[in-house]
């Protein structure tokens, strides 16, 4: 009788290269277009008085770009205070650090700035100006800060992202083809995150035998 040829007890269980732990901001680098780099953007941010905004639709890489920039900002000598706003959150979580108690010169980073109501945005900008704090935000639409970067999704970038995720994964490269990726992008043309999640599902279906 044929037994399922599963992993031996000493092999780690097979993973899914499109799982959150591999695609989340910080786990995957931001892929800049030719001629751009994180250091260039941080230099531009510094020239703008450490104020700037990263604009782009859902899932276009704003948080990933932010995660790529933060170490560069720290290398440039600025302390960073990061606040992440999830869907529906209307205020900064200041339990750990209140903006008005941050050290002078700290760069305040808000991921999901569009979640804040207008008056909280105004208060935040006023507090940052009062204390000479930098302010770098991600937002879906221009919010009145100096434009630092506009994120968007195109197929060459998607190819680089998927190529990076499947690097050293010959099994994964056999399971998900470029045509699959193109189909996922057709379904989610501006949202790479959703396209990668669609590929996660496809990968699971094929790996586990098309349930």
């Amino acid at each position, binding site marked *: 009788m*044929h037994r*399922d*040829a*599963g992993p031996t*007890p*000493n092999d*780690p*269980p097979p*993973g*899914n290269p*499109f*799982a*959150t*732990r591999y695609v*989340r901001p910080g786990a995957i680098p931001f892929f800049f277009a030719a001629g751009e780099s994180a250091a260039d953007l941080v230099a531009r941010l510094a020239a703008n008085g450490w104020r700037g905004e990263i604009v782009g639709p859902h899932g276009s890489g704003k948080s990933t770009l932010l995660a790529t920039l933060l170490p560069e900002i720290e290398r440039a000598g600025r302390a960073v205070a990061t606040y992440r706003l999830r869907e529906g959150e209307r205020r900064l979580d200041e339990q750990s650090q209140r903006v008005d108690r941050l050290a002078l010169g700290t760069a305040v980073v808000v991921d999901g700035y569009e979640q804040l109501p207008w008056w909280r945005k105004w208060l935040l900008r006023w507090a940052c100006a009062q204390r000479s704090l930098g302010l770098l935000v991600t937002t879906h639409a221009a919010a009145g800060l100096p434009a630092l970067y506009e994120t968007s999704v195109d197929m060459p970038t998607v190819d680089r992202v*998927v*190529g990076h995720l*499947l690097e050293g994964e010959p099994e*994964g*490269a*056999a399971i*998900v*083809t*470029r*045509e699959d*990726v193109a189909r996922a992008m057709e379904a989610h043309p501006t949202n790479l995150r959703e396209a990668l*999640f669609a590929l*996660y*599902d496809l990968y*699971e*279906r*094929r*790996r*586990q*035998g*098309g*349930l």
Partner: protein
Amino acid sequence: MKEPLVSIALQAYTRIFAPGDELVADFQIDAVEPGEVEAVEASVLWYTEGKGDEDLGVHFFKRFDGNRDDGHRDDGQADDVPLHELRSIRTTLPHCPLSYDGRIVKIRWCVRVRAFLNRGRFVVADQWFQLGSVASPSQSVAESRKRGSERNDAGHAAANGAGGERGGKARVPGTRPDGNARPDGNARPDDGERASTLAAY
């Protein structure tokens, strides 16, 4: 420049443990200069893997550092060994959550060792192990298909008589169109498409 190397070994013949088992893991840090390691943290933890929010739970944690090293060796002697040398941790594994290889979420267990080096650097290594033996969805489906296939075979044999060779061949889930069983016993609805598609990545 040498890259520090963290090695972890489980004191067991298998990576599959049952709840309540004792897990003993040895670890050491190689390719470092004396005094380069400032602290070592060893933990036994689980984490989820999937496409949504992630979760993590630490079952066991121990920190060894140069100033207040509360570690111990297996022989019970006082610990005055350098941080990079062989050490052990020992813990009794809990009853949940059990390892699980689901489609939407997976639960992984591992021993994780993080070594903090001078100049703010650190290295980390995981050693995977499995807690419990929960069947994955693919295994469950394969089992149920196998049972169904056995029932079908019995039914066909009864309908066709003892010889069972008359009539057309039924396509059994988990077989290729030529009738040969897939190695994993599972059907894939898009076999034809996959065979003809060039893997570009």
